[in-house]
């Protein structure tokens, strides 16, 4: 069985915790000058969606999660589940709200997403790191205002709300980072 030592811990690593697959969200090395070293870890149980904190002794090993990470194309949402397709086999699979989590605000049809499978069932969906999405709602743009550095909220076609510069207008396409939820740039049509 594959396993990871605490010094391999990093966010995104998939491990088995209390019999469930989990992903590491945060890993902090903690060590008093005169004492044992520990890793204080925040993990997300991929079955329940619950976040837990666990402290490991540095050097301890933990079983790797028996999961498969695949690239799949997002198709549509039927109001309950999100549907994805394997671009090679054209096999379709549906993921529930637990698996999709915050990714739902970033999913655009036909985008290639990372889908983690456990026993063939999707347990985690991550959108592409960078997405290009259209602004569907924002206050009127202040044309030419590229200098003041002010921001305003803008709602994107997938439902995500990002802070954008004041000159952004409805209908424009923006490049965003889904990991930080930040606006990166305008995309010229």
């Amino acid at each position, binding site marked *: 069985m594959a396993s990871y030592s605490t*010094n391999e811990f990093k966010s995104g690593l998939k491990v088995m915790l209390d019999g469930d697959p989990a992903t590491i969200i945060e890993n902090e090395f903690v*060590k008093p000058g005169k004492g*044992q070293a520990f890793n*204080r870890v925040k993990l997300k149980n991929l079955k329940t969606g619950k976040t837990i904190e666990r402290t490991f002794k540095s050097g*301890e090993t933990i079983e790797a999660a028996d999961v498969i990470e695949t690239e799949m194309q997002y198709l549509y949402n039927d109001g309950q589940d999100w549907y994805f397709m394997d671009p090679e086999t054209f096999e379709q699979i549906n993921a529930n709200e637990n698996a999709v989590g915050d990714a739902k605000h970033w999913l655009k049809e036909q985008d290639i997403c990372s889908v983690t499978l456990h026993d063939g069932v999707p347990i985690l969906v991550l959108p592409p790191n960078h997405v290009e999405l259209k602004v569907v709602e924002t206050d009127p743009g202040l044309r030419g205002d590229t200098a003041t550095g002010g921001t305003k909220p803008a709602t994107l076609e997938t439902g995500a709300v990002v802070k954008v510069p004041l000159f952004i207008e409805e209908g424009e396409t923006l490049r965003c980072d889904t990991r930080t939820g930040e606006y990166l740039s305008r995309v010229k049509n």
Partner: protein
Amino acid sequence: MNQSWRPGASLATLRKRARINQLLRTVSEQRGWLEIDPPVIIDADAFESGIELIHTYDALNACANSLHSSPELALKRVLAAYPQLPGVYSLGPVFRAGESGRLHNPQFTLFEFYQTQVDLSQIIETTLDLILTVTSDQKAKTPPIVRWDYAELLAEYCQLSADQVYHAPATELAKTGKRLGINVSADIALNRDDWLNLLLTHIVEPTFPGEQLTLITGFPESQAAMAKTQYDSIAGMRIERACRFELYGGQMELANGYQELTCPKRQRARLSATQKPPSTHKTSNQSLNRFMSALEHGLPESCGVALGVERLLLWLSGNQHIDAVMAFSHNRR
């Protein structure tokens, strides 16, 4: 493009660092302390609890050596040889295997100083004075200083009695830890010092305000292998505690100080009682043997303090990661 060739610290931070080094040397010189360049390569296995050494190969003698984790052995040997000195210090790199994270780097800079003929309360004032000198040079505001007794601190934040703090078995401290929400992996065995440390790092330290200097004294005897101990009267009990202090800047350990153990017999006993990390490389331990010879010759009454220069700079600058206060941290080496 990969930017890891660049320094992690900004130019302004590197200037601050150089300035702090200079200040530490100036203050030491004013106090009459002698700067010593200790050997970085030592012939010793791990001898302190929780500190693993980085091993090197000594081609001259075809045996294992280590990189020092502090200049303690060398500085004390100088004091034993020249007891007329008011103090000695060194400012340079030290090494600890496996320590890497937001506040740790396998190599860091330690300012370690020893002052002769002073007790713990005097060295505490010297240390605070030194930190405030550096702080006033870097910041306009004088930080508040709060002093805690270890037993009172754990009573306040973990509802432990003094008897529990110094005597309760690990299982009882584990219950307290769990009650306070510390969730440890089921597969590990922890001793009472491990649990006390977890209470400190997980429960107590997060309550320290960022701007504040917090001083803790009264550590259990088991948590300072090279310090003197004394019997204190606490809650009607006589408890043997280490003559040790720990100084925090915000939630970070900045400096640790001991009233140094001078009795060779007690030192030998305490080092052999210390739980050492398993050593995969056997050295001939000459450095530790020579240190013991120096103790037998006679170490003057003294106190020593180790101050982490990167930590001090983190605290002063408000940076969140040690990479931002070093030219090249481990990941950029």
